[in-house]
């Protein structure tokens, strides 16, 4: 807006502030709770000011484990989540960019069929095909492994479609110029398409990393060992206790830790994101 309306901006700001509070307040409570000791929380009069047990609580969840149903350290869970989310994000991008490249730039028999098969997988997320997928993974002895946690989630139509749309906007002359410049299909992909897709890659990486990080049902099904569980499952298990009070300060510390990597990815990638949006190439 060019005009400067001092009071006209008040209402939108109020709405924004209210929205921000709704989102930020629970996060703030979680952070505060993770700095208190067990008694303060369990007596029901939790203060909204941070306590003094921050280092103690975080050190305990990270390296000692809790008194809950899971004895695993949160540091292990973070590692498991990180590895599977990275495999899912990188694997999905690698597979989808290559399949989009094949579909857009190569003429092969059953090309249309291949495209529609990929398209069809949109209708079959893991939750729908959970029994057969579980059977396959277990028959391949991939339970309790990173491969089992990530590979079934990798095949993805959305990313393929996105790359396909992007590749179709790349002028044909670039391909022809590359052909004349003695670049074969591999060089054209590496030297021209990949650098041009940089911003798309960044955007997809953010989305897919979060998708992988937030997986709950699938890792819950195929991990049985404590040392293979992911952080999202870990939070749930830390809340469950037998014959003892839930150590809420530890559960909250775990939740805060679980939030950090996705936040870091978004914050870090946002720079690339915005940069990519500002300098439109092609």
């Amino acid at each position: 807006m060019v005009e400067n309306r001092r009071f006209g901006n008040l209402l939108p700001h109020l709405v924004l502030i209210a929205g921000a509070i709704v989102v930020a307040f629970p996060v703030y409570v979680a952070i505060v709770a993770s700095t208190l000791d067990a008694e303060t929380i369990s007596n029901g009069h939790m203060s909204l000011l941070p306590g003094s047990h921050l280092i103690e609580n975080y050190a305990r969840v990270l390296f000692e484990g809790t008194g809950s149903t899971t004895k695993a350290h949160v540091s292990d869970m973070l590692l498991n989540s990180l590895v599977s989310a990275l495999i899912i994000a990188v694997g999905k991008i690698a597979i989808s960019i290559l399949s989009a490249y094949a579909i857009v730039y190569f003429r092969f028999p059953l090309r249309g069929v291949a495209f529609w098969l990929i398209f069809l997988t949109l209708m079959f997320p893991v939750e729908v095909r959970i029994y057969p997928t579980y059977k396959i993974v277990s028959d391949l002895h991939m339970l309790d492994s990173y491969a089992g946690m990530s590979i079934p989630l990798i095949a993805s139509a959305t990313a393929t479609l996105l790359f396909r749309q992007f590749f179709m906007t790349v002028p044909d002359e670039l391909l022809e110029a590359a052909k004349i410049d003695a670049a074969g299909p591999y060089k054209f992909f590496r030297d021209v398409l990949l650098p041009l897709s940089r911003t798309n890659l960044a955007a997809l990486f953010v989305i897919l990393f979060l998708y992988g990080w937030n997986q709950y049902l699938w890792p819950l099904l195929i991990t049985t060992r404590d040392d293979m569980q992911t952080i999202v499952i870990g939070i749930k298990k830390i809340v469950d206790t037998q014959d003892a009070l839930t150590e809420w300060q530890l559960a909250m510390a775990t939740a805060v830790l679980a939030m950090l990597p996705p936040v870091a990815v978004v914050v870090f990638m946002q720079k690339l994101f915005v940069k990519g949006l500002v300098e439109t190439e092609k």
Partner: protein
Amino acid sequence: MAGVLLDRVEKTYPGGFNAVKGISFAVPDGGFCVLVGPSGCGKSTLLRMIAGLETITGGQVRIGERVVNDIEPMGRDIAMVFQNYALYPHMSVYDNMAYGLRNLKTPEPEILSRVQEAAKILELNDEMLKRKPRQLSGGQRQRVAMGRAIVRKPAVFLFDEPLSNLDAKLRVQMRIEIRKLQRRLKTTSIYVTHDQLEAMTLADMLVVMNAGRVEQVGAPLELYERPATAFVAGFLGSPPMNFLNGRVEKPGVLRLGDGTELAYDPAHFTATSGAEIQAGVRPERIIFSKDGSGIPFKLELVEELGLGQLVHGVLADASFTVALPAGVHAPVGDAQRVTIAPDAVHLFDRKTGARL
């Protein structure tokens, strides 16, 4: 260095559309050949077949001594300049020019010297070599695209309407630069354009195409002065040639649609009496008569070009344009008479369009 020979080249698309219908001509080594025609005439398709970007469905293309029908573009020893430049947007100007050489495993010092040489020819300074294509103006991008072709030192340059994206003034300037460059490098060039002025000024050898066929091949002036078909006559020249329908009364005399007589030079045409013909007259070969002789012309509109005037009107029931040189003014009043010298009249068969 090599000539290019096309021998009955055909292109039929899988759907059955026949875009190029048996074209044969030869471009001599070092020659500048311009393919010109209206859009959809197959000229770009033909160029892309020479480049190897379209398959050849019939006939042969030779570059030098080699038949290149089944050779990939990179093996044909050609370089191409595209209409939209097709520069790699994420690479610097230097890398854009060096990319092809790097793929051919040229040593880096050799690449450096070739790019610098090309940059010098094209007047691109060192600072520009570091920029990305989007930071350059249209004319500079066009130069980079040519630089990318020059560094390869190919046997043949192919240009696909390289000036169409530039504004009119820059187009004239780049046209001159391309011509100078080609004279200097003496590389065989094939240039596609739909602009007849560009075609006339650039070509050593002009190929006029229409509907997938060659209408005429020859030197620009030859085509301009002795067009083989009515199509070539109408396509070359701006403003275009005037056409009048008529019948041969007797050798040397035509009877136009409204009964007016028009004289032509019978020595140059083999038209039999009674033949239905189309007569063509270039606008600049017509003069207004001051003494009341000549053919009636109804003056409708005068366009001032500065360089001269264009007078539009009606002659023998057909729209007709007269081009006057600078300093000559159109007469005042609707009813005028014009004289047309007999040697300015071209005769074409009315059915086939062929020169008689």
